[in-house]
Structures are given as C-alpha cells and as structure tokens.
C-alpha cells in the first residue's frame, strides 16, 4: 500500500509576523520556517501505519510550494518517510489550489491512505484535508486524535467541543491529524544521513485558479497595557469591582 503524507512549510510559531510591502502577505525576512506542527503528527501516524502493515508499504511526503519546501520534505524523510515529491509553485495558493495539486498527484500514485495536519499554522484554514478528500472522492475524518485501520475499516476519534466523536468510515480516506494523535519521533542521526540519499522528485503543481482574494493584511490593533492593581490579595476586591462595574463581564 502507498501512504501519502502532505506537509507544509510554515513560519515558526515563535516568529513575530510583519506585514510585507505588498500589504497582502508577510515579510519573510528574518522568518525561520519549520514543518507545520500538525504535520508532524501526520508523519508519525503514517510511519506507524507503515510499521504495522510491514513490507510493501511505502510512505511518500508531498508538499506544494517553492524550493524552500524541500527543507520540510527533507525533515519528513529524516523521520523515516521513504520519498518526497515537491509540487512546485513559487506563488502562494489558497486551500483549493493546494488541494487540487495534491489530489492530482495522489490520484496518480493511487494512495489509499492520506495524512495531513488538521490545519497549517499560517493561514489557519483547516480545510485542505476536507477539500482534498472531495477532489479524490475519498472519505475524510478531520481533527483526529486516535486512529485504527483494520482491513478496509477505519475507526477514529475526532475532537469536538467538550469531548470526542467516534467516527467509522472506510478506505480510501484522508485523515486530518490533531495534536494528541501520537508523539512524533525525533529524526535520528542515522535518519538524517539516510534522508540525504532519498529522492525528492520535483514537478510543476497542477494549475488551479484560486477562489480567495486577499485584499489587505494588517496587524491587529495593539492593546494598550492595562493597570496593575497591586501585588497581593488586597487588590482582589478592586479587580472584582472593575470587572463588574467597568468591564461589566461578570
């Protein structure tokens, strides 16, 4: 069986975001890029499936974007993914455009099990797994925190408000991985060395017309620092009074 894992290359969550001169995208100068944190759970789960299914199972990492996305693919390879494919497009794409490119390739590869992070921590749409599944005509379970694949049968738990839903579906399927699904492994030195020998195939991403137009990007209004009411419990009554009378929130 072939397993696809879709990875995206995003600014480190510790990065300060500055708006670029085009006022539509971020200023990339000084930004460190990392593997999208949710994709690490997707990679780990794909590798666990490979261990479970054994010989003949192949895990392929796919990423849509520019040359720099190869760093993220390389990290997936170092964790144990077999090979990578960069679907190249230096221009930013919306979720439909990304899913379109992934779908074309995954269809060619005939992967029955597809893992994605539940969202990318850049544009935070949390839509690629679902859109991809629609394009492929696969089932989809998003925000997954536990997964079992038994023959064709897939049983997953997905996080909802105040609990979890147990969902049953069948292969082929797209899974959106949520934190809590597993503990992603660290790339070993051996893995990092091996990754250097693995291939990353490059091909142009299938063309797609975006549906979302960004008109302007801006920073949220800076909050004025508030008042320090004191340094011990004697400040508590004043705090409660302000919350009731000024903020009117309790």
């Amino acid at each position, binding site marked *: 069986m072939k397993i696809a894992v879709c990875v995206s290359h995003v600014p480190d969550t510790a990065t*300060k975001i500055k708006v670029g001169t085009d006022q539509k995208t971020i200023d990339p100068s000084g930004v460190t890029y990392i593997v999208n944190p949710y994709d690490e759970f997707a990679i780990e789960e794909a590798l666990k499936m490979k261990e479970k299914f054994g010989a003949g199972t192949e895990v392929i990492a796919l990423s849509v974007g520019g040359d720099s996305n190869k760093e993220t693919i390389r990290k997936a390879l170092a964790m144990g993914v077999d090979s990578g494919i960069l679907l190249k497009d230096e221009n930013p794409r919306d979720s439909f455009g990304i899913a379109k490119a992934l779908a074309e390739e995954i269809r060619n590869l005939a992967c029955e099990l597809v893992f994605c992070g539940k969202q990318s921590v850049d544009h935070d749409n949390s839509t690629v797994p679902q859109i991809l599944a629609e394009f492929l005509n696969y089932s989809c379970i998003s925000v997954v925190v536990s997964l079992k694949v038994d023959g064709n049968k897939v049983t997953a738990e997905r996080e909802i408000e105040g*609990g979890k839903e147990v*969902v049953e579906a*069948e292969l082929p399927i797209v899974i959106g991985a949520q934190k809590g699904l597993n503990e992603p492994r660290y790339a070993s030195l051996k893995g990092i060395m091996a990754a250097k020998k693995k291939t990353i195939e490059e091909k142009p991403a299938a063309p797609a017309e975006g549906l979302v137009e960004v008109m302007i990007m*801006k*920073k*949220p209004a800076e909050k004025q620092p508030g008042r320090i009411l004191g340094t011990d419990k004697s400040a508590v009554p004043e705090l409660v009074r302000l919350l009731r009378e000024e903020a009117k929130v*309790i």
Partner: protein
Amino acid sequence: MAKKILAILEQRDNRLKRTAFEASSLAVRLAGELNLEAEGIVIGNDVENISEAGKYGIKKVIHFKNNNLSNYSTSAYTKIISDYAKEKGADYLIFSGTALGKDLAPHVSVRINAGCLMDCVDVKISSGEVIATRPVYAGKALIDVKLKSAVKSIVIRPNVFKAELKDENAFSEIEVINIDNPDLSAKVTEIKKSEGKLDVAEADIIVSGGRGLRGPENFHLVEELADALGAAVGASRAVVDAGWRDHREQVGQTGKTVSPSLYVACGLSGAIQHLAGMSSSKYIVAINKDKEAPIFNVADYGIAGDVFEILPALTEEIKKIKS
C-alpha cells in the same frame, strides 16, 4: 423570488446550539443588505427548539429528518446540504466555526463550487460584495478577503458575532423533509463526553493556568475560580506539553484561538504563541508574580502577585458576589 442565503443551524443533543443563532443573525443581516431571502437548515431527528430561530429573524427553517441523523455524519450532512443548495440556487451559506461546521463547510463548498472563508471575525458589505476579516498566523495578523466564486460559504468564529433578538414572540415556520437513505459512509457511532466541563472554544469566560502553578496538583486553584465564574479551564502550551493538562484545553497557536468576553491568565507569562491565541479577548486579567511578563502587555487589569495567594482570594470574592 429573492435568491437564498442559507444559515446552517447546528444541533447537539437535539437542541439548536447558541452558535446557530449567531449564524441566523448574520444571515438575516446579510439578507437585508443584499436583498436575499434568509432560510435556516437543520439536520437531525427530533430537534426541540427549531422554531426559536424565528426570534432571530429566520422566517423559515428546513428540517432534514432521519433517525440516523441525530449525530453528525460528514457524508450525509454534506450531501443533504449541497443537494439542497444546488436545487435552490443558494448564493450564500453561513456556517458556525464549530467542530461540526469547520469539518462540513469545506466539503459542501467543493460540491457546490463555492469558495469558503473560514474563521471569519467580521463580515461587511462593500459595493455589493461581502468582505470578511479573518485572523491568520493564529491572530498575529488579520486579512480582509473576498471570494471570486459565484456561490460563497462563510464560516464564522463562535462567540464573536452577536445573536440579535429581533422579536421575542416570533417563531420560524418549519418544513420537514424526510431523508430516506442518508449516505452514512462516514458516521459518528459514539460521543465520548469529557467530564461535564465547558470547552474553551465555546466559553464566554476562560480561566487559564500556566507553569506558575508549579504542578498539575495545584490546578484545582484554576478550576475553582473557573467554577465560581462559570468559566472554562484553559492551559498554556508549556503545561500541556508537560502532560499536566489535556490538549483540548490548550489556548494558542497549536491549541485553540479564542475570543471570550473575559480571559483570566493565571501564572502564565504570555509566550507569543499563547498571546496570538487569546489577545482578541474582550477583557484580559493577568495574575503573575513577574511584573515584566509579556502577558501584562495585553492585560486590561493585572495583579503582579503570587497565584497561590491571589487565586483563592479571588475565588472567594467571586463566590460572595454571586451568592
């Protein structure tokens, strides 16, 4: 006949959720501004309070009914809504950005060739076009976006848009459509509720704890204050990664992005990932020994003191005024 704007009204445990009325109000407002007809859609079996949508200005609700549809099914819900939207030529769909709405909206959107704007925190009309504002990079920046597609899906962040009461005595007309063979190729077979606690994504007040609590055994101080306030318990990434608290409580960039009316940060310093996820809260209270902690930069009110002293005193004071 005016074109339609459909508000997807979510039910859980056979009752419409509060977020359903937020979606109703936005649909009614946009219908007025764009000269459309707002209609509600409910999928479920016996849903008790559908007609309440009328109070928020929704005149008619279509109730798709089947006894296997009480629980969510991505496949069935997607098919029902997209078939109906196509049949009626709906122009706009409004979803709530709940676990259900966030899963469902992109599926439906692909089927009906709609673009989909997720997690919108503001929606306005400019020259006849809908412009939505949505946070990106967990709220470190905001973008104004519009859709180029003819049909448009708008998914709104819970707790941000007001459910505006139009007429206390109005009721929606309900049209029941029985669904014979729903597509249950993906279906929810069980719901495991976590112990009776409010979820941070939906709470109006959140009390969050961080490393300053020194250990999971001290989190009862946060829980007690949350109980007194009727609030949800939140946590910083540091304490979730340390295994003190479950990930579902995590607020911030790899947790949940929240905008409650009151956010009380206890013993957490305010790492950039955390601030991104909560600084859009209406009022923020910070309690932290270190008066240089970044959390004080976003707090409206702060006490630069020891959480172990202040939390019990605050809980007592809240209980006093609530009794």
